[in-house]
């Protein structure tokens, strides 16, 4: 009897295991079909990469393609390009994959590459993102139907990263651009996995599966980017099942969404980081000793752990997010309350009325300029810095502006601030794009040198790194750059940003890319049964 029962149990277990195995394998089999809806906080402005702006870029990534692409691990691959070689330090020869077709049916040839780059770099009407690809010289030389040679104005180590990760490098269909003229923005044609269907202003952009996609047709039939400007509504739109992907989860909603068993909440590293820069071009922060004292007075670790929280950022030890090529630990944070106190005293500051440090009758009053929406919790971080500095007797005024004003202040010739928040996502994933801000040539109003500091030594390091083709030597140069930044106390790196993407459990095959703009495609995504 006993034996029988055992047998029955074993048999039942076997049957159960079999059912489980088949259902699992069935569940893991990618299925074709369905609609994937992705929530976006803001509408697109056009489907033309020449004029693309803001959130448009996320839609472009599925319709247009660049010559190279970086995968989610940061490894560079030829994309539309099959093979490439450097003829010399400034000449790059590329051969395209054959048989790739634009959505219009026209074949992708070297002429389209030439056309795109010359259109983007047209001096009379440059593309929005032309600055990123400015190293490429026009006219472009076409060698044969599938081969082009790019010449750069100087040896450019990051040229492949630039060709991979920029809005300006998305290849457009010459025939369609010419045919539609100004209306190309609503009649786009690229080589990507999805074709444009319609854009209902302020509501959604709809894309459809490109069955002839050269890289293998996508699984989903329809891809919708749905505009929902309000944070609370965005979260409810996901939870109600109206949308499948909430690309950027509002910080305040992360905890709540984690508790929902039907959702997957993923913390994704990005190329972005947030720094606090001092204004080195005017008193009193033009004194490196004061800048260093301030950097030592700010307890960044406490701010990142308590205010920013690990959901949003990881403490910076250098100038770049660890995901970026060129990231180097240069010993930040510098927090040291004793050293800071001593430094303020050595500079001649004495506690005056209300405990505010005073020198020659002048209280140490500084201003911090920031845009509260640019990065999550900016306002809270600013308040924390204000409180910490106050405990040393520094009177910090936080001046909060909306983006247009903030951007103007950052880039204005006057530079009316002592400190400024500067968050930046390095699209290319290569340090050069951000390091370049610190060049003398980028002193505002010409560029974005928000620390307003330049020196021949710094220029030399940045330019040498830009041209150095040896990766190891290049990394060393960026460490050198970080050391100068630290020794000159140009600012305080705060944190490397995370993005939190929330998806429904039935969304499979989604690779989450650190680059949130040019590379996030939905080609391999498939939808399992919804339950």
């Amino acid at each position, binding site marked *: 009897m006993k034996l029988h029962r055992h047998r029955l149990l074993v048999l039942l277990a076997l049957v159960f295991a079999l059912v489980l195995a088949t259902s699992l394998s069935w569940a893991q089999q990618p299925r074709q079909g369905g609609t994937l809806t992705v929530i976006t906080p803001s509408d697109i402005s056009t489907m033309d990469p020449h004029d693309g702006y803001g959130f448009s870029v996320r839609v472009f990534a599925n319709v247009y393609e660049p010559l190279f692409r970086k995968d989610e691990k940061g490894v560079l691959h030829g994309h539309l390009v099959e093979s490439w070689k450097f003829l010399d330090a400034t000449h790059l020869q590329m051969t395209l994959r054959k048989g790739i077709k634009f959505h219009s049916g026209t074949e992708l040839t070297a002429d389209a590459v030439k056309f795109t780059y010359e259109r983007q770099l047209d001096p009379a*009407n440059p593309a929005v993102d032309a600055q990123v690809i400015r190293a490429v010289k026009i006219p472009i030389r076409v060698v044969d139907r599938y081969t082009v040679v790019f010449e750069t104005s100087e040896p450019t180590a990051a040229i492949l990263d630039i060709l991979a990760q920029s809005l300006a490098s998305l290849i457009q269909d010459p025939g369609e651009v010419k045919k539609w003229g100004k209306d190309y923005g609503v009649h786009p044609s690229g080589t990507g996995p999805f074709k444009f269907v319609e854009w209902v*202003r302020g509501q959604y952009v709809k894309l459809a599966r490109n069955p002839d996609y050269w890289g293998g047709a996508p699984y989903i039939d329809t891809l919708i980017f749905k505009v929902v400007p309000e944070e609370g509504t965005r979260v409810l739109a996901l939870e109600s099942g109206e949308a499948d992907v909430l690309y950027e989860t509002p910080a305040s909603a992360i905890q709540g969404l984690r508790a929902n068993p039907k959702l997957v909440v993923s913390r994704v590293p990005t190329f972005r980081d947030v720094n606090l820069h001092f204004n080195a071009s005017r008193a009193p922060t033009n004194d490196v000793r004061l800048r260093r004292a301030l950097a030592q007075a700010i307890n960044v670790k406490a701010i990142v752990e308590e205010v920013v929280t690990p959901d949003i950022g990881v403490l910076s030890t250098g100038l770049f997010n660890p995901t970026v090529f060129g990231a180097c630990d240069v010993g930040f944070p510098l927090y040291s309350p004793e050293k800071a106190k001593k430094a303020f005293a050595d500079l001649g500051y004495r506690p005056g009325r209300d405990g505010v440090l005073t020198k020659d009758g002048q209280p140490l009053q500084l201003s911090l300029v920031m845009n509260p929406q640019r990065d999550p919790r900016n306002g809270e971080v600013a308040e924390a810095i204000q409180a910490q500095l106050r405990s040393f007797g520094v009177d910090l005024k936080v001046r909060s502006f909306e983006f247009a*004003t903030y951007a103007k202040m950052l*880039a204005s010739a006057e530079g009316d601030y002592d400190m400024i928040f500067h968050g930046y996502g390095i699209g290319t994933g290569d340090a050069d794009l951000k390091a370049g801000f610190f060049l003398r040539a980028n002193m505002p109003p010409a560029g974005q040198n928000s620390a307003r500091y330049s020196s021949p030594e710094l220029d030399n390091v940045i330019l040498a790194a830009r041209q150095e083709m040896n990766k190891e030597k290049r990394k060393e140069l960026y460490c050198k750059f970080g050391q100068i930044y630290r020794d000159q106390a140009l600012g305080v790196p705060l944190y490397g940003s995370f993005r939190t993407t929330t998806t429904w459990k039935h969304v499979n095959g989604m690779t989450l890319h650190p680059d949130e703009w040019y590379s996030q495609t939905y080609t391999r995504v498939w939808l399992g049964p919804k339950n």
Partner: protein
Amino acid sequence: MQLAQYVLKRLGAMVLLLLGITFIVFCLMYLAPGDVTLMLVPNVPSHEQAEILRKQFALDQPLLVRYGRFLAGVLHGDLGISWIDRRPVVPQVLDALSYTLRLASVSLLLSIAVGLIAGIVSAVRHRSLVDETIMTVCLLGISAPVFVTGLLLIYLFSYRLGWFPTSGAGSWRHLVLPAVTLASFLVAYNARMMRSCMLEVLGQEYVRTARAKGLKEVVVVGRHALRNALLPMVTVVGLQVGLLLGGSVITETVFAYPGIGQLVVSAIAARDTPVVQGCVLLTAGGFILVNLIVDILYGGIDPRVRLT
């Protein structure tokens, strides 16, 4: 004849008013800190590229020259192109306006119907439990911020019950929640207004006379009192139409409803002056027109009012 003259005079004043409004908005956009060119080259802003854009948008021209060009465009029915997406302003604004009109008319009808009935009932059953209940609900309606009402409705009817979509536009189902949200405020306002007007009228001597004649209460309230109590309501509702025409920024944002309120706010944030001007011109024009219509209606309802 008199009416035609009156309308013509008012239309003339409207042109002057619109000139003034657009000029003020033009100056405000000019004085506002920030710069559209910096919004457009966000990745690596460069001075030279910004200069090219400034030329394209004629931002290098003096203020008055730019305003003159804008006016010349208006005469041709051309409001220029948006600086952000480089497409014509007129269809964009008209599109947003049509969405706003749909939302405004539904919530207005809703608020008039419910508000008037609630107000009349409240007044007739003055100081009763019904009156107290209606007035308490109205107080809530007036006090609750629109985004709270909106999010609560989404939570309840979209997320919990799944009856209506959380956001967007297109079908009648998209319209229900934003319309109710907008109306919740207006209903409360209209009901309180209607109640106090009605109470005032019900105390008048001609109402007492009507009652003394032995008329039924329904006739007294419905015919004698209502018509007089409605007069101030016409003005109030007229103003509400004007307000709604400008779009409800918060309601539209909460429900991702692509109306004119959202359009103008995003355009201001991006310093997209042509779109801002287009929105202001059309909504201000609409507002003035509606007010004119209200004044004409007034004469129709109340023979004592003469339009001169």
